[in-house]
């Protein structure tokens, strides 16, 4: 929030165009909300992945601090209402936010819920998708009122594939989970393999048979199950797992029948953020977050931070708090935002996906960043990741 002592500094602002002179004592308030829809489910395979209560919200708090620090020079005050809800209550919570006049809603939800919320909001709010990776949301189900800050499955898959091809590991053994979202990621990997010339030599589905996620000494069975599950596969360079629901992939490294590296949902994992990232000034960013949240930053926090930074950056550049002005600028070709990834992040006009590099990570470290330098593009190298303009199935319905 706006600090009391800062108000005296507003009068000192001497900014260049296109900034509106802001001499009033009261700053312009730019409110937003973060709506996180939590689904009941099994705990993650690793207890290190247990979600903290402030997942996403901690990123929002840092973004508001960052926006307000700039805002004190601009006469702008940012705020984000945090709402954690359930699938049943999500619509009512969105209605309440909209009736409070909040026109920017950062949504952390699955694909279908994100779409439902976007349709409910209509032209009353801009939805900033900070979690859902589904390619349909950027394709056949795209919505004019939605910006995708979270990278898509296609971007994740392409980021990984470029690296595997650079390693000269083109023969893949693809193992996918039995849930719809696993299939979505597997489909993205299959398209990516075609795009970059990898060959899927074997495919298997790992059925989720339910039951508890862990039992005492469960590792004894895992050590027997995973080698058996992976034996007698065609000759392959790498095992690629598509397990968005976190049912089996984490068990694969070191347990495969053949001694092969694992990538995808375990092993070498494509991510939007990693708490060990130190390049491009990220150390300071990580420090700021950890001082505020007392824990390392997760992808959900980064994506929420970035979503709110989009609003802050648009407000700084336009010198405006007007909703339509900010929306128009965010979706324009002039918009760019820095996100500690070594280059500016910009907006794809054909599906409202934010262009961004993809980090390839292990548990401890960032191993590489895609796009790999060999993959060139006539517009932006970042467009070698994900669905490019000629391939898009998105057709915005203009009101």
């Amino acid at each position, binding site marked *: 929030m706006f600090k009391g002592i800062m108000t005296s500094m507003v009068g000192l602002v001497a*900014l260049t165009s296109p*900034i509106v002179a802001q001499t009033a004592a009261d700053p312009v308030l730019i409110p937003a909300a973060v709506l996180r829809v939590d689904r009941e489910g099994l705990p993650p395979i690793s207890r290190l992945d247990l979600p903290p209560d402030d997942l996403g919200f901690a990123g929002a708090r840092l973004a508001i601090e960052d926006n307000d620090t*700039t805002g004190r020079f601009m006469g702008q005050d940012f705020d984000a209402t945090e709402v954690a809800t359930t699938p049943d209550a999500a619509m009512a919570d969105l209605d309440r936010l909209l009736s409070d006049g909040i026109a920017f809603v950062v949504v952390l939800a699955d694909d279908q819920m994100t779409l439902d919320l976007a349709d409910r909001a209509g032209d009353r709010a801009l939805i900033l998708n900070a979690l859902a990776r589904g390619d349909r949301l950027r394709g056949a189900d795209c919505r004019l009122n939605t910006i995708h800050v979270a990278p898509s499955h296609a971007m994740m898959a392409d980021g990984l594939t470029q690296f595997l091809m650079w390693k000269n590991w083109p023969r893949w053994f693809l193992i996918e989970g039995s849930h719809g979202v696993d299939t979505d990621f597997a489909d993205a990997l299959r398209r990516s393999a075609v795009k970059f010339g990898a060959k899927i030599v074997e495919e298997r589905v790992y059925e989720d048979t339910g039951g508890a996620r862990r039992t005492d000494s469960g590792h004894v069975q895992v050590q027997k199950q995973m080698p058996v599950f992976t034996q007698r596969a065609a000759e392959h360079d790498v095992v690629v797992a598509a397990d968005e629901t976190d049912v089996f992939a984490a068990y694969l490294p070191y347990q495969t029948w053949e001694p092969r590296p694992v990538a995808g949902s375990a092993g070498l994992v494509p991510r939007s953020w990693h708490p060990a990232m130190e390049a491009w000034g990220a150390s300071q960013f990580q420090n700021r977050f950890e001082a505020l949240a007392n824990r390392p930053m997760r992808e959900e926090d980064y994506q929420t931070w970035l979503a709110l930074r989009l609003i802050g950056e648009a407000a*700084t550049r336009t010198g405006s708090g007007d909703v339509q002005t900010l929306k128009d600028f965010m979706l324009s070709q002039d918009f760019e935002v*820095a996100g500690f990834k070594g280059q500016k992040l910009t907006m794809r006009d054909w599906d409202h996906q934010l262009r961004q590099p993809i980090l390839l990570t292990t548990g401890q470290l960032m191993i590489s960043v895609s796009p790999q330098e060999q993959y060139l593009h006539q517009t932006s190298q970042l467009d070698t990741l994900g669905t490019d303009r000629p391939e898009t199935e998105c057709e915005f319905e203009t009101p």
Partner: protein
Amino acid sequence: MMKPILTCALCLAAAPAMANRVFVTNEKGNDVTVLDSETLEVIGTYPAGNRPRGITISPDGSELYVCASDDDLVRVFDPQTMEETHTLPSGPDPELFVLHPSGNPLYIANEDDNLVTVVDTETHKVLAEIPVGVEPEGMGVSPDGKTVINTSETTNMAHFIDSESFEIYANVLVDSRPRFAEYNHDGSKLYVSSEIGGTVSVIDPASQQITHKIEFEIPGVLPEAIQPVGVRVTADGKKVFVALGPANRVAVVDGETDEVRDYLLVGQRVWQMGFTPDESMLFTTNGNSNDVSVIDVEAEKVIKSVQVGQQPWGVVVAPD
């Protein structure tokens, strides 16, 4: 030192440039490489604390200052012996700093704390902490010493700070991630580089207005790789050199028209630069190729590269 020679103006004119010590911080090597500007040979490598980055030297050449970022302080060395004489408090994570033209005080950007720390180089005391934007980085000072510039990387502004009252009196919004601020010698222009924005803003310090944005375009180099960082201007204001980071080029800009004249191929991820006192040579630190490129300023040609330590970051040349 060199004083007897200086009195003999004729000898100076006839002789080649005097030998000066060139100090290069190696961010990963945790040391400083010292070169001889005449032979371009490495004189030695000396420990400099953890993650040495920004480096500068007092106007009389008696004290060498190094930001030891991971030690959260500034280390001060005797430039001749390279022995550490003392440290200065800097606030957390110092990255870049600038000395007042008189040699005192030192203005330090604290990236972690959204502060600029002002330190007296004689008493070693903190004189002030000035709140600025998010992630302060670049530091510049006007030739008359009255204004200190800080750039904040996430706020994307150049903050104009009164060097006596320590108050911010103006803010200029520039392109993304401003990294470095440098005045020309008559104080009529201020150059601010934007790493992610890919531009250098030319600012009129009197009106605090951007008069021009220098843009860069290099055939065969991806636009995203053009990331302006270090900026140096010749004393006559006619040549502006801009280090373009992963584009591996230094741009030569006409200081009068603000037009780019040439791109000089240097080492990989060129970061900071430093002139010899006579401005015959410019040294560039190339972080990813572990070397320093030497540019002939008159000819605008790269004449040599010299291997230094791991990930060279900053460079300063001792005065005559």
